[in-house]
């Protein structure tokens, strides 16, 4: 085997997954070893595990701004999103509505409904077009659920969920409002979002918890059918043995994130602004996709003219800078961003999309290094004059 020398890592892909909090890792360890009992069991050993899950539920409820009985632990954010939409349609029939910049965990579910799904447009920042949403709600009498993400995973845009709620309550008072808040926990006070919705999805690994734990907040009693049927372990809302260790760690991470949120936001907004302005100083033709006042502090999405993301990401990876562009399909191939297309970003610029996302471990040194590496990589890609293209002969 060849000797592989790994470069030092500059991790700027926190929106994909942010490192686990040390406290969360520590908190989960006992449940991976000596406290192995099934929390649904009937002995004292099981009750200890059950108590850990219940305490975690209290913590999540406190940070999310809901009652503990409204917290459903799931297997991931995607499951929470699926449960909200598929479960609502399963329970009540009708139509599901979402904007076209949603994460695929929502968008593909609504599209999968065919005739019973409606997609609405967004503005240039990626915020749902409230007039169009109102028009769809007025024109569609049997809307069961409206799903609008609180923070966009690609470009970081914040949607005013209170404003969305006003439109939904006015034009479709019987409809449920769901928000995919998977990208929100580190940046926004979840209580302010939960107050306006019926259903809210979270994913633990986006806020320093482990992968494999999601939350669906389901307000005011059952609103949707369960997605996973079986032993009914999670309060008859979701079946499957509790992931005790993961749930405990998720709660610890969410609590820490909430406590440090205001301070982290202030610190990371400064670093993010330094990153974007640093790139713009270093390189021509770098457009910040969404202005800072409309997005979360950790998002530095830019479109770089004259290059292709796929080539840029390779050079960044070679230098140890972890970043992303748009979402990948099952084969691992980069797909053209549906978010940028929906926002009306010119294709030539969308081709050069770069998503750099900051998180709790990001330092000023990371930012300096990223500016250097992105700068040098873009220089390399732009310096090159492609060989004359080979003309297809048929």
């Amino acid at each position, binding site marked *: 085997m060849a000797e592989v020398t790994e470069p030092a890592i500059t991790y700027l892909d926190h929106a994909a997954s942010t490192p686990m909090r040390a406290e969360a890792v520590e908190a989960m360890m006992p449940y991976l070893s000596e406290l192995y009992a099934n929390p649904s069991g009937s002995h004292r050993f099981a009750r200890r595990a059950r108590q850990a899950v219940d305490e975690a539920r209290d913590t999540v409820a406190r940070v999310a701004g809901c009652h503990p009985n409204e917290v459903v632990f799931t297997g991931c954010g995607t499951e929470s999103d699926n449960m909200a939409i598929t479960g609502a349609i399963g329970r009540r029939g009708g139509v599901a509505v979402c904007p076209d910049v949603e994460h695929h965990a929502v968008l593909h579910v609504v599209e999968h409904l065919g005739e019973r799904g409606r997609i609405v447009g967004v503005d240039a920042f990626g915020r749902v077009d409230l007039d169009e949403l109102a028009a769809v709600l007025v024109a569609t009498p049997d809307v069961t659920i409206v799903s609008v993400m609180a923070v966009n995973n690609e470009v970081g845009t914040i949607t005013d969920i209170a404003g969305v709620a006003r439109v939904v309550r006015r034009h479709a008072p019987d409809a449920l409002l769901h928000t995919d808040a998977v990208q929100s926990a580190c940046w926004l006070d979840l209580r302010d979002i939960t107050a306006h919705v019926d259903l809210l999805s979270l994913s633990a690994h986006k806020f320093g918890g482990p992968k494999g734990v999601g939350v669906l907040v389901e307000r005011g009693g059952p609103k949707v059918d369960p997605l996973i049927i079986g032993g009914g372990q999670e309060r008859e809302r979701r079946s499957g043995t509790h992931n005790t260790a993961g749930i405990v760690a998720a709660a610890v991470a969410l609590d820490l994130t909430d406590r440090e949120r205001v301070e982290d936001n202030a610190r990371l907004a400064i670093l993010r602004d330094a990153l974007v302005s640093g790139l713009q100083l270093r390189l021509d033709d770098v457009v910040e996709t969404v202005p800072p006042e409309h997005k979360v502090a950790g998002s530095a999405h830019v479109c770089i003219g004259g290059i292709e993301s796929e*080539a840029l990401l390779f050079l960044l*990876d070679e230098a140890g800078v972890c970043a992303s562009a748009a979402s990948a399909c099952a*084969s*691992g*191939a980069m797909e053209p961003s549906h978010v940028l297309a929906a926002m009306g970003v010119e294709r030539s610029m969308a081709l050069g999309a770069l998503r750099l996302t900051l998180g709790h471990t990001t330092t000023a040194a990371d930012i300096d290094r990223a500016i250097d590496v992105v700068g040098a990589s873009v220089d390399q890609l732009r310096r*090159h004059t492609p*060989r004359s293209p080979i003309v297809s*002969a048929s």
Partner: protein
Amino acid sequence: MSGGVDSSVAALLLQQAGHDVVGVTLKLWGGDSDTGCCSVSDVDDARRVAQQLGIDHLVFNFGDDFDEHVVAPYVDAHRRGITPNPCIECNRSVKFARLAERADLLGFDAVATGHHANIGRTAEGHHTLERGSDAAKDQSYVVHMLDQAQLARTMFPVGGMQKADLRALAASIDLRTATKPDSQDVCFITSTGGRTSFLGERIPFRSGTVVDTDGNRLGEVESVELVTIGQRKGIGLPGGGPKRYVVDVDAASATVTVGSDADLLRSELIVDHMSWVDGPLDGPALVQCSAHGRALPATISQVDDAIVVCWDEPQRRIAPGQSVVAYDPTNVRVVGGGICR
């Protein structure tokens, strides 16, 4: 790395030779294929082999280029009654153009593939393109379009190997692709749907009139777009009697002409869009008109912008759109190739 055994072993051999290797799988087709949407399981195989070798693996999405340069011309050619070879167009405009350009941009010295062909050097230092050493697996026909500049930056690590040895090598280090069957067909056409359903979703089929060489009407075919010169079956004629072949397809008038074996014979053919491995050549050559066809003796000469192939003995007519590749008289080196008019 397509996820097949040839490119797996190509990567292995390069690594053993001390090269700094990165595995790349191209995502070309986003629709249905025999190995799942975007050929997911082929990508899985390629990635797992790369992991076993300890090399990085990337997926490049060249789907737009593939649609534009391979799929759209394939569909359009059928509309015009022409039978193209999409794998050759993919090599021409995606693998050895788009990918080679990307590799260049990223600072790589060469693109290697698992094709069974060899690249040599002449005494003067020119590159030669030669048949693969395993005659049954030779793929020089499908990479015939490479010129000197491209050959200088291309490697075919398995070109000198016999397929059996190559599989044994892959098995010896437990690569999961060791016993994977060779791919046979066009990647964007499923074995269940076939060419008919693929084209049927994209172009309207027109029924055509079948006539004999004197113009007498014999019958009808359902879709003139699916008829190929040389075809015997599926032209809606009753069995028995002398064998009849499609000797001409006129898409414009939706007319299919059938005739005897002798009616198919031609003494020459005209080739457009000729590319040359090492500059144009006139004179005797061996000429091959399909991937695994025999190379037959002929004389090639340049007439205006085209090449005329004069067969030593009359040969069956070649369908327009097919690639025609000339080899040197020893049947080793590719001289050049183009598209049958």
